[in-house]
């Protein structure tokens, strides 16, 4: 029997249990990566069912098919242009109206559709009773009730999907109709659009043109610039009738249809009463208790990640140290053997001991915070504080994690919606002094100059973040948007989903970041092996000695600090021949050195994450900026401090 392949895509709002459906369908046959060239997660997997091999793509959770976010653009391009065989629209039964607003937009794209009416248990608890057959008739597509968390209804769902696939393509019998005056103009425009090849359904293109959708306008007007005038006049006619802007009219029309369908298929059986989760929801955003709970949760997350990380990192290091001596007893210790270990194996070890021990607990914590619904509460509470640096509440998570390690910090920037906010948050996160930099600040300035100076450096860094944040906010192009987000009801996070998320995201991280770390290490070791470091030290002395006022030997630890910042101190001790830095460096030199270390470059692992999230160009831009900025600030600081102290 020939293999029968079906491609299905899961689409739906955020927080509807889409990833739970995905996990149930695909089990361990899944793969998490990025959409080509985009910082949006792409999850796909396969499932075998009654002789069919079904490829499942989990589209990002979105509320509309407009151009608000990358996720929305990716989803609509994928659905319309790649044409999966069947779209499964996962719908949260307890928020039916808003979910149907999205379903209606999927219907506009004229693809074969099956609605998975999920979380009916939650809806029932809220006192809602949904007639799914009636809903199916009204929408014109099959509706399968299910409770994904318990696996109920998912087999029926797959059966329905195959049935729809077998029946063939979408028959546009069930357009929801807009008002007469709008339909008339859509028809006129559709006739015109039919002559242009776009790959999208003509009616959809017509509707989007009337909505003044920037992407579709670009697509059409590049081929048919003459159509612009016609579209404008039709859109203005509609606006005249409604005295509203046309995108607003279309949104209202869709909501009218959604709300009517929801009303006709929904019966409220019992009045909603505040349950436990409702009370928890208001307690966690309370103006006093909310903050207390947040401090408690966040500090335990922070503490948890870093105690686990430190412990594992330490024990792994010991294991590898032992391995190293075993390695040497077997192969001897000729320079070539040394090079193999230091240049190749050391890189892998660094990846395993530095990055992984922190990333694993971070992924677990993030997954739990996300799926439980607590993350939006934190964003809610921290919003006003972060407005001063041009970010909104969600950015609190990456910035806070940055104090531990910038690697998970930069990864957490994905929770920001637009590319602009993601980039801004990542940039600021790399400037937060992570644990490794804390080692240098406390170990050098704190120990030898005084704890007050160390704290002053922290305050100075906060000031810089504030200042650079405001600057970047002004300079970066794009419209800044305040906080608009859903506050989902609390859910018990599923252990299985958390474990799978962690595992598959880790796989992705290792694939992208490890090669960079290994290559970076190899390059540095090669430099050392060829003994070009003294040459670099001499040639760069204009920078270290003349501009920054540091001893020339500091260049070497600074170069190696790119790899691990906490190593700079150890290496410096080795180079100057003593651990008592006070004998070889002045207080000013120590402060300047610590400042430069604090700012000068994200470490290799962080750069790897930046590359993974934003591509090489932006990662290099951040890196170069920070090198230049650190040198500038260090030099100015040296000159100012020299004025005050004669040390």
């Amino acid at each position, binding site marked *: 029997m020939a293999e029968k392949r079906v491609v299905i895509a899961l689409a739906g709002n955020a927080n509807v249990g889409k990833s739970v459906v995905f996990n149930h369908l695909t089990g361990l046959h899944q793969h998490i990566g990025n959409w080509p060239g985009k910082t949006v997660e792409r999850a796909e997997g396969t499932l075998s069912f009654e002789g069919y091999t079904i490829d499942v793509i989990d589209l990002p959770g979105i509320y509309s098919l407009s151009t608000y976010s990358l996720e929305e653009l990716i989803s609509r391009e994928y659905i319309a242009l790649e044409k999966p065989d069947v779209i499964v629209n996962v719908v949260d039964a307890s928020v039916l109206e808003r979910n149907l607003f999205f379903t209606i937009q999927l219907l506009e794209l004229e693809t074969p559709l099956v609605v998975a009416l999920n979380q009916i248990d939650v809806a029932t608890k809220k006192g809602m009773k949904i007639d799914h057959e009636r809903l199916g008739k009204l929408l014109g597509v099959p509706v399968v009730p299910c409770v994904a968390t318990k696996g109920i209804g998912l087999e029926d769902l797959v059966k329905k999907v195959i049935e729809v696939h077998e029946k063939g393509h979408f028959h546009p019998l069930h357009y929801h109709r807009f008002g007469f005056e709008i339909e008339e103009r859509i028809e006129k425009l559709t006739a015109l659009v039919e002559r242009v090849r776009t790959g999208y359904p003509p009616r959809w293109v017509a509707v989007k043109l009337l909505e003044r959708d920037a992407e579709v306008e670009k697509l059409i007007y590049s081929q048919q610039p003459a159509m612009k005038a016609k579209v404008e006049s039709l859109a203005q006619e509609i606006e005249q009738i409604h*005295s509203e802007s046309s995108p*607003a009219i279309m949104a209202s029309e869709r909501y009218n249809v959604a709300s009517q369908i929801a009303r006709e298929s929904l019966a409220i059986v019992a009045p909603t009463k505040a349950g436990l989760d409702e009370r928890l929801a208001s307690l966690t955003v309370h103006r006093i208790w909310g903050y207390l709970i947040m401090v408690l949760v966040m500090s335990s997350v922070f503490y948890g990640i870093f105690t686990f990380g430190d412990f594992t990192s330490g024990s792994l290091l010991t294991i590898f140290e032992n391995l190293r001596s075993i390695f040497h007893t077997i192969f001897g210790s000729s320079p070539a053997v040394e090079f193999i270990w230091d240049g190749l194996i050391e890189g892998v070890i660094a990846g395993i001991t530095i990055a992984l021990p922190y990333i694993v607990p971070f992924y677990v914590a993030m997954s739990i915070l996300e799926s439980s619904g607590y993350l939006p509460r934190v964003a*809610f509470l921290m*919003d006003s504080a972060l*407005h001063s640096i041009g970010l909104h509440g969600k950015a609190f998570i990456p910035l806070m994690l940055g104090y531990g390690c910038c690697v998970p910090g930069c990864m957490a920037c994905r929770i920001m919606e637009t590319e602009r906010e993601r980039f801004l948050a990542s940039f600021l996160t790399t400037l937060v002094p992570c644990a490794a930099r804390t080692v240098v600040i406390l170990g050098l300035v704190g120990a030898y100059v005084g704890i007050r100076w160390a704290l002053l450096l922290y305050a100075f860094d906060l000031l810089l973040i504030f200042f650079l944040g405001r600057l970047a906010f002004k300079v970066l192009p794009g419209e800044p948007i*305040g*906080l*608009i987000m*859903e*506050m989902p009801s609390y859910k018990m996070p599923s252990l299985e989903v958390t474990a799978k998320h962690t595992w598959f995201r880790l796989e992705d991280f290792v694939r992208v970041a490890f090669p960079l770390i290994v290559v970076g290490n190899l390059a540095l070791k090669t430099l050392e092996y060829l003994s070009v470091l003294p040459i670099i030290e001499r040639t760069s002395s204009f920078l270290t000695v003349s501009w920054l006022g540091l001893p020339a030997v500091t260049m070497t630890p600074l170069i190696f600090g790119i790899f691990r910042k906490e190593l700079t101190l150890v290496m410096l001790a080795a180079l100057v021949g003593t651990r008592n830095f006070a004998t070889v460096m002045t207080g000013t030199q120590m402060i300047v050195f610590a400042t430069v270390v604090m700012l000068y470059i994200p470490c290799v692992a962080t750069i790897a994450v930046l590359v993974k999230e934003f591509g090489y160009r932006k990662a290099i831009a951040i890196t170069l900026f920070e090198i230049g900025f650190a040198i500038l600030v260090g030099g100015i600081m040296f000159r100012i401090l020299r004025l005050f102290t004669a040390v």
Partner: protein
Amino acid sequence: MSTSNIEEYLQTLYTLEEEQKTATTTEIAKRLGFAAPSVTEMLKRLARQGYVRYEPYKGATLTDQGRRIARKIARKHRILEVFLHDILRIRKGRAHTQACGMEHVLSDEAGNSLCRMLRFPDKCPDGKPIPICDEDVEHCDACEPTGENPSRRERLLPLCSLRPGQRAIVRFIRGGTMAVQRLHDLGVTTGTQIQLKNCAPLQGPVEIVVRGSALAIGHGLASKIFVEAC
């Protein structure tokens, strides 16, 4: 007592109200540069005309009638400031003095046309909010240049000034296209009923319930959504 004089007093009271300060005679005297006794005299007169409530030693508060006039004047003043500062490049202090003179002779129609020309600013150069107009439109984009928009009857207030638990209907959304689009996608369209659930302290976001789902909206955005309490 001239109209512009009355308008200056009412505007000062309005500003004090915005800053959540009590309008004492001394405070008003300081701001307007008059002597305290003449301010007391003036407040009594304004009270007789029904624009303010005045209690000796406590201060004055605006009546609804007074606030309506004050809002209009504050709106014109701040729009003029934006025009003088952003377009004519006049320095802030001088723009303020100039606007103080012009605001009393500017017609409503010209004020609203200026607002359209400046692409619907929401803050004056000093960062104070510009009160919304009373034309009956649902979005700034739908504002017609004819000057014949019907007048709004209801009293609109920004979403962020609702009390927790209070219900209201969205009537007008001011501001950037992307944000308005996002609000629409999440179900906040004009004519929709919403309920305020929580607000975070220190000008934090508000949490509302709309179409059965809970949304958090940042303070900046929430102050651009105008509702009619019900």
